[in-house]
């Protein structure tokens, strides 16, 4: 509980948390605040912000940009969190096996991780989504599948560091089993940097999702920020608001998550946070 208290005293971390909570609230109340679907035409095309009761203006087909931004928050948060979780599951499993067992297993797994880290993740994501057709599930799995390498490397490094720590060897000498040692001694001591990097992965996942939808690879049934910017791109001379507002929404959300994640990092593991960027 010390951690919670010191987080509350972390200024930038708290700013991140508050902004993030606002985004979450917007996402939750979207259907109440905007009962009309964001796909519905509610005004004349190209309504500028503030006119016709549209706070953030209307798009080429007279759809409410504000409604789109609110509904987009749902998509971004769900995809961001779900794919970061997927990445964590893949990354921690691979990293833990690699770090604990070492040897040839480690060599093969780390070569694979390096390969995944070097190939252009975004291009691979495009290829995967294009192959399996864009839907919420394929997008989440794809982003998870290209985002796990940093988590695997981190987990491996932590496991390697802890595996030869004296307290782990003492536990071994005292007759504790492998599973108990991993779950009882290594993982609890490795978990905080993993949580920090996972929270930062949510941010990169949101950026990745927005880029995919911008390229026309979003779930066609869901209104997302990247899709809105993509749609506004060609008419930026006539309707700047169509691309400015969804972009700001992404910027603010990602910034908030990063601030939160860094605050978490400072509070949970001051040593690692100084090493990392």
């Amino acid at each position, binding site marked *: 509980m010390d951690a919670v208290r010191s987080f509350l005293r972390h200024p930038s971390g708290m700013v991140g948390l508050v902004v993030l909570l606002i985004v979450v609230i917007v996402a939750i109340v979207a259907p109440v605040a905007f009962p009309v679907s964001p796909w519905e035409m509610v005004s004349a095309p190209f309504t500028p912000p503030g006119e016709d009761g549209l706070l953030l203006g209307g798009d080429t087909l007279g759809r409410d940009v504000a409604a789109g931004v609110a509904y987009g928050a749902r998509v971004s948060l769900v995809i961001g969190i779900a794919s970061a979780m997927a990445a964590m599951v893949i990354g921690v499993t691979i990293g833990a096996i690699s770090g604990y067992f070492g040897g040839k297993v480690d060599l093969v797994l780390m070569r694979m991780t390096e*390969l995944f*880290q*070097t*190939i*252009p*993740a*975004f*291009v*691979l994501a*495009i*290829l*995967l989504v*294009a*192959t*399996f*057709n864009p839907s919420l599930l394929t997008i989440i799995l794809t982003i998870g599948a290209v985002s796990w390498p940093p988590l695997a490397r981190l987990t491996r490094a932590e496991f390697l560091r802890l595996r030869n720590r004296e307290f782990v060897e003492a536990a071994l000498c005292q007759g504790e089993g492998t599973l108990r040692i991993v779950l009882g001694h290594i993982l609890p001591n490795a978990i905080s940097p993993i949580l920090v990097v996972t929270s930062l992965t949510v*941010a990169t996942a949101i*950026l990745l999702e*927005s*880029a995919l939808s*911008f*390229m*026309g*690879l979003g779930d066609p049934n869901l209104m997302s920020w*990247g899709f809105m*910017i993509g749609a*506004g*791109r060609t008419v*930026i*001379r006539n309707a*700047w608001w169509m*691309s*400015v507002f969804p*972009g700001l929404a*992404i*910027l*603010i959300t*990602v*910034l908030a998550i*990063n*601030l939160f994640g860094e605050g978490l990092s400072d509070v949970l593991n001051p040593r690692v946070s*100084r*090493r*990392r*960027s």
Partner: protein
Amino acid sequence: MIRLGNAATIGLMALSRIAQLIAVILLIATFNFVLVRAAPGDPAQVMAGQSGASDPKLLEDLRKEYGLDKPYVVQLASYLGRVVKLDLGYSYRQRRPVADLVLERLPATLLLTVTAFCLALLIGTTLGALAGLAAGTVLDTVFTVLSLVLYATPVFWLGLMLVLVFSVTLGWLPPFGYETINVKLSPIERALDVAKHLIMPVTSLAAIYLAIYARLMRSSIIEVAQQDFIKTARAKGLTGPSIVFGHMLRNALVPVVTVAGMQAGALVGGAVVIETVFAWPGLGRLTFDALLQRDYPVLLGIFLILSIVVIVLNLLTDLIYKLIDPRMTTGAA
């Protein structure tokens, strides 16, 4: 201890890296092969794309050409054989070999990514070093906030905002394209014209990586400043600048260069989106068009070629890394 000369060691390392490169290319090609088979639908239909799928004759030709009735192993072997000969298949939409399409677009992409990469690394590390040395001051705070904001900005949106400001509002720079068309220009004028078109795509792409490198360099400088050998340098009576240039910078650069290599893949990914925004005639733009037409052979070819580009960039940063840190060449880490 047996010590080969620096140059010889680096040469040998480069050779082993080239061998690795070939292995990786074959792996990615295999991955492509598996992906086509895993895709929903008949591989022939996948390869033909949306428009070609309705043409029974084309599908029949494809099946024959790719030997789709043969066992997978045979198919894979013949596919890899073609990849080695740089035969990346045929785009039925554009009616041209994929290799031609991709290689034709590669220079524009390289121009964009390499320029952005160098600028980001150069400016990012400089700003980061300044911020790190001035840690805790107003300057440092301004840099930190700026880099945090840039780091959270979607690259394509940043590009659009630049267009909005510098082309739509101010009219200073061309909003898109590689060069002004339908004008006759001398080679120098042409280079300047391309450079002018390059400014915004490069800026938007570099800005984000600049932020990453700056943040890294900042923390790296702060960490190095706490090392014992900096205390030694101070105890030797060295001046501030000789401590910074003689002892801190090189040590601080080591982790930044490592990460720069790992970020090369992301940078190339960013270029794909940025090219879409600025209609830059490179592989990104080609990707966007191929996506619209579901031109699958082209997508596979782009993935393969861009992976190679990233691996080469990685190789370069690796060599820089080994030049900076003597512990790497003699191998006693």
